[in-house]
């Protein structure tokens, strides 16, 4: 018998190793894509074509960012540095990429967390009390489908227009305070909530037919307790699985949302970095996002096992 903790450690190591190779490949992908990008990176470093820089300045910049080396060497250096946790310096921000991430990631993570909470609240409130209910069910279900189809940036614009410009209920911009996060979190969270609600509704409906639900009812349990204590747990899994994907969708959509609401964050930073061809920053942000995504996957996996302990026995 292999001890349980060893098996867990082994599984964890295997996953971590896989995650590592995935990150390595993602880094390579960034490198390749950015190498294929047209334009002289030095011009990007010095702020575009309107540079009046002297040849000396150009040469120094080229050297400082290692752009005077052959490509394979650049790639090697890039990977070596990444392996050491050095993302290099951002061309456009004049600061280490790590510092950019340190200052820009928290607001985005806060926004994502808020949006995620909105999404799950929506998904649960919309499904748990309404599944198979005569009138509320169809109405909630239609609402969910519509929500899932809303582009977040469009919803964001409409929310901004209605609640900020017209009614003045929320501040139109910024990264300050609880109020400023409400509208962007709704814009990001509602569409994701729609998706979560759709899968949760389906699994909830299926779970209502589980024999153990009948057993619970036959025990004399009331409907609310049956739904909350038995059905919900069975219905959560697809939503949890989707959540990992949802984190990625949140990051992607955060780009537009942060711009609309003029919030600081890695989404907006990523867009600026991509359009400024600021390679170290792009690579840093993408790797950071990939890491978040992988961690989200881990957490979702963990959560699945918590919700359904049978999986522990099956997969570890």
């Amino acid at each position, binding site marked *: 018998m292999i001890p349980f903790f060893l098996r867990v450690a082994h599984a964890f190591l295997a996953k971590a190793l896989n995650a590592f190779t995935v990150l390595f490949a993602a880094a390579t992908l960034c490198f390749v894509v950015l190498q294929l990008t047209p334009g002289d990176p030095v011009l990007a470093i010095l702020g575009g074509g309107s540079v009046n820089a002297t040849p000396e300045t150009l040469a120094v910049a080229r050297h400082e960012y290692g752009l005077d080396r052959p490509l394979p060497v650049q790639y090697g250096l890039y990977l070596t540095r990444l392996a050491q946790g050095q993302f290099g310096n951002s061309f456009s921000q004049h600061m280490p990429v790590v510092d950019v991430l340190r200052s820009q990631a928290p607001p985005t993570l806060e926004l994502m967390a808020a949006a995620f909470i909105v999404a799950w609240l929506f998904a649960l409130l919309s499904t748990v009390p309404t599944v198979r209910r005569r009138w509320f069910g169809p109405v909630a279900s239609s609402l969910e489908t519509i929500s899932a189809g809303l582009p977040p940036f469009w919803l964001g614009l409409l929310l901004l227009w209605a609640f900020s410009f017209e009614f003045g209920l929320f501040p139109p911009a910024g990264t300050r305070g609880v109020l400023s996060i409400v509208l962007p979190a709704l814009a990001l969270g509602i569409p994701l909530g729609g998706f979560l609600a759709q899968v949760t509704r389906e699994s909830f409906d299926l779970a209502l037919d589980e024999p153990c639900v009948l057993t619970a009812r*036959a025990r*004399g*349990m009331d409907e609310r307790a049956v739904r909350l204590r038995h059905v919900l747990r069975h219905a959560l899994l697809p939503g949890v699985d989707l959540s990992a994907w949802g984190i990625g969708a949140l990051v992607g959509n955060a780009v537009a949302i942060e711009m609309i609401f003029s919030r600081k964050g890695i989404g907006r930073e990523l867009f600026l970095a991509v359009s400024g061809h600021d390679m170290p920053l792009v690579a840093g942000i993408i790797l950071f996002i990939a890491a978040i995504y992988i961690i989200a996957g881990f957490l979702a996996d963990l959560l699945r096992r918590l919700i359904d302990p049978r999986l522990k026995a099956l997969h570890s």
Partner: protein
Amino acid sequence: MSALPDPVLHVEDLSVSFATPRGHTVAVQNLSFTLKPGQVVALVGESGSGKSVTARSIIGLTGAGGHVSARRLSLGDDDLRDLPERRWRDIRGRRIGMVLQDALVALDPLRPVGREIAESLAVHRRGTAKERTRKVLELLEQVGIREPDLRARQRPDELSGGLRQRALIASAIAMSPSLLIADEPTTALDPTVQAQILDLFSSLRDRGTGLLLISHDLGFVAKLADEIIVLEHGKVVEQGPAARILTAPKHPYTITLLEADPSRHPARPVAPEPTGDSLLEARDLSFIRKGPDGVIRPIISDVTLTLRRGRTLGLIGESGSGKTTTSRIIAGLLQPDTGTVSFRGEPWVAAGAQPVPERMRRPRRRFMALIYQDPLSSFDPRWTVFDILSDALSAAGEPKANHTDRIGELLERVRLPCSIARRRPGGISGGQRQRVAIARAVAVKPDLLICDEPVSALDVSVQAQVLDLLEELQRDFGLACLFISHDMGVIRRMCDDVVVMQEGRIIEVGTAADVLIRPRHSFTQSLLTAATKLSASLPVVA
């Protein structure tokens, strides 16, 4: 017993119907019976007979769209018709308990069984949390579970089939209800376990619990029931004291049911001593896999068997004993870790460095046909029955031009209407599907038929028909057959020779007559005892 008022259940003219998009469907019609403590009423019928609906209606859980009407439906002094939901909740669990089929899903699979049982108590606000914990252990002991402390903390999937079914019963009797409804309480359990559960029910009855026992299996209820109600398509076809119904059934359907029971069937006539050529020989097969706990263990080991032309070899064992693995290796679908198989005198499967390549097997595959327990998954869902059979005929090298005629013949042979050829397997009944599977199997004119639990998913009456058909075809075509089943009755009826498997090993080999009448191995004996127990009260019709 709890001091509750008169706990007698009166059901008179109970009818249940459902609203569907196509109008009302009547599920049960004019059912009447009375259930008293210490008494057992059995509802017997096949799928769709309305027996489960009845059970649910009695505790007010008919389901969406269901409409219940009755001249009388009362528990003691309480009229159960139009009872408000609050009152129903008071009755459920406390005055009427319910046990469902398959505790693996009937108990919440995500929670330890102890919590499930405690919930039965908590719902009715019985005691403090601490008292409930103690009561849970008592209950587990009461239903015959040893080490209740450990078991209470395990989930249904961590318990054996018998233990979890007991735990389910414990959760149903937690509030000591005077009546218990058991809906197919032992289906899908191994016969030895079934027998144990049966004992548990009889002890509950002896302690004064009234039982409404629901089953498709007359044999199972025979031992326990005081009164038997036979249902067909929602109608009561026969109702009366158990002894009378079992010995002198009046209604043809009851008779069909009784006769369908394979164990009531005469055993296969003793075949002449094995003389035919050896068609298939398996030597020293073993198959090793890493289990879910990371431990490498053999699924089967040292399996050796011989099958001669025209004979039927029965492979019997409980679930997990390695029957299916053996059959898949023999079918050349799974590469064994050791051992060889030869088929029609040529190498068919070989383990180790020089396996027989699939390319070598392919031309001979048509001489071996397979019938699966779940025929549906063995059919491409896009194909019609015609496509499926035509595909098999092509495999056997039949020219396309003949297909239509041959398919007509095949369908006739397996007693299916020709119109079924245009339908897809998803749209026909389970019995029909198995017939299509049989038609496909015989279409290639094989020498050997491998049947893996071919009837265990079917209703008893359908089982009988399919077995009849198989027997007939085997006789007519002179097929050899490897027949896998967990059901002693089926094996006895179908097989000339028997191999008994336990935990991946063959523990007994012999002719059916020898093994089934004079088992040598203790495990075989216990299998037989259990099977006898479950149908012993049924007289054998000669």
